[in-house]
């Protein structure tokens, strides 16, 4: 599935398949309730948000009350009550990314798209949100599209990304595959792999920065004792 394919329709009523997949998630754990977080990801994948129906379904499968499910769904920021666009664009504005350009990128995108925080463009394509630290500080400022890394952004590059997304042009993560839709991403997070783990590099330049320098200078960790044993034995004999 690529960015240019039409997205699968939102399930207005949860399908039989989704019901059975929700049960499948619960069955992965020694205690079924442990499945709730991934189950809610699957609800979002099927219905584009956490719906009242999805909450009822999780509650029924896990034997807990809808209020208990609701309490969980409202606690975690990745769960959305309003429909999310085809692409969720998150701009990191925690301290380091903010200083390195995140604040300016977010302001520019809000202006360019004409949306506020956690709002979706009228064409339903892009939901814009400021996000907290996404563990990519060595690539600051960082933007996430459907939770794929878009590293080392500038206001101009960020505008280009959202324009491409809205025009249906493919956008590729700097450290991953071509971005899928938000609902497809949510399905992977629910524990249903999409077979795309082998796309993209092992890491970006920052990931490999120290290793590259070590290679240039011939630096390594000490050799294991087993391997040096003959040498020291030799030294002992010489002595």
């Amino acid at each position, binding site marked *: 599935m690529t960015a240019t394919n039409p997205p699968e329709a939102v399930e207005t009523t949860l399908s039989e398949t989704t019901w059975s997949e929700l049960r499948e998630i619960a069955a992965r754990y020694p205690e079924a309730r*442990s499945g709730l977080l991934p189950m809610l990801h699957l609800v979002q994948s099927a219905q584009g948000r956490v719906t009242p129906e999805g909450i009822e379904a999780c509650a029924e499968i896990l034997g807990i009350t809808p209020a208990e499910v609701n309490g969980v769904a409202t606690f975690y920021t990745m*769960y959305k009550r309003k429909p999310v666009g085809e692409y969720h664009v998150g701009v990191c504005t925690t*301290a380091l990314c903010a200083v390195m350009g995140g604040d300016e990128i977010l302001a520019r995108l809000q202006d360019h798209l004409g949306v506020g925080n956690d709002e979706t463009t009228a064409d339903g394509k892009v939901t814009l949100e400021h996000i907290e630290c996404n563990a990519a*500080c060595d690539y600051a*400022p960082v933007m996430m599209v459907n939770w794929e890394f878009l590293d080392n952004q500038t206001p101009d590059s960020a505008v280009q990304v959202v324009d491409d997304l809205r025009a249906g042009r493919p956008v590729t993560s700097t450290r991953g595959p071509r971005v899928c839709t938000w609902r497809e991403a949510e399905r992977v997070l629910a524990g249903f792999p999409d077979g795309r783990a082998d796309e993209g590099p092992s890491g970006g330049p920052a990931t490999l920065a120290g*290793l590259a320098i070590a290679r240039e200078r011939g630096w390594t960790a000490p050799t294991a004792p087993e391997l040096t044993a003959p040498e020291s034995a030799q030294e002992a004999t010489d002595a």
Partner: protein
Amino acid sequence: MPDTLTPVLSNTWDAPQSWKLATYEAQGGYAALRTALGMAPDDLITMVKESGLRGRGGAGFPTGMKWSFIPQDNPKPKYLVVNADESEPGTCKDIPLMMASPHTLVEGVIISSYAIRANHAFIYIRGEVLHVVRRVQAAVAEAYAAGHLGKNIHGSGYDLDVVVHTGAGAYICGEETALLEGLEGRRGQPRLRPPFPAVAGLYASPTVINNVESIASVPCIVSNGASWFSSMGTEKSAGMTLYSLSGHVKRPGQYEAPLGITLRELLDVAGGLREGSELKFWTPGGSSTPILTAEHLDVPLDYEGVGAAGSMLGTKALQIFDQTTSVVRVVLRWTEFYKHESCGKCTPCREGTWWLVQTLKRLERGEGQPGDIETLLDLCDNILGRSFCALGDGATSPIASAIKYFREEFEAGMHTPAAELFPYRASTAYAATVSA
């Protein structure tokens, strides 16, 4: 004397398709698992104890000792839970590790689970890192297919199942008991301790919770021995570790070095700060560790050295800020982070972080009122040590330390906006030139 950089965990990251089982095994991967399965579990615990490995998630608790706290006479199942909820601002080491070499983690999970006699392990990954989730899911599937996981692993009679679990956006779930709540399908709010997870953790059963890098460090210890590991690092802080450089430096990224290296040495290797930059302040281990300044360039970056300098080694997340940066602005943004992530369970943290943000916002706008600095310190005093978990304590670290080193900037906040003193554009990564 080991080399300045000592890639062990990162040593395979530049191999083509480094994340694949075949690549990992071609470089000696899963040999440690076979060695471990031939050992008695208690001997493995002793080995990890003797290596001196300490938790890489921030607290630095000895890993082998944590394992030994599991009451083996408890009839309940034992569990291993990997904390892969990397979210502490500045911290960015576990994510690249899992992306580039998920099998290092998976092999560590199997050996560690065998050592504590767990037949079920969970890898709790934050939800906001899709491709990392893909890579770890694929690695676990490959490990099952190769017989490294499942029933009777390599004829040892040992069974292990691993579940890759995704979070859903909550920094607090990096706190180990909140993580267990999330893993049990509840709101991620910390639990009262005792009982500690070693006694009553997941499903009230004995549970070990370790950081990704801690668990990933286990296979190399099994392969090369405890004394090999402790030949790197310092007396009380053994081994190599991932240091993460970010911010106003020429070459941000991951640098694997023996514990005890200094920031000066690391910057020297990494080409220093960006052109025209002077070091103003930095964090040794994420935003919850008190900031340090240029006077601390020669502090050994190990648990004791950073502690003696009045901060904490934390996650070794070295966020570097130069002279263009407003410390008031940075502290405000960290504080907004803690306010956003406060789980709401306890009053000092929930209410205190809100008030801290209000006060800091005024100061950033240059509209601070007399007494604001005292109010900030008073608030910190009422949060530190009075919150339910370390999130509240961590929220006070940047504020108290920034006032200690840069009080005059907070005083300037009574009359001049931070953006006027430090034009924000100059701090960006794409600012054409840097000027003081």
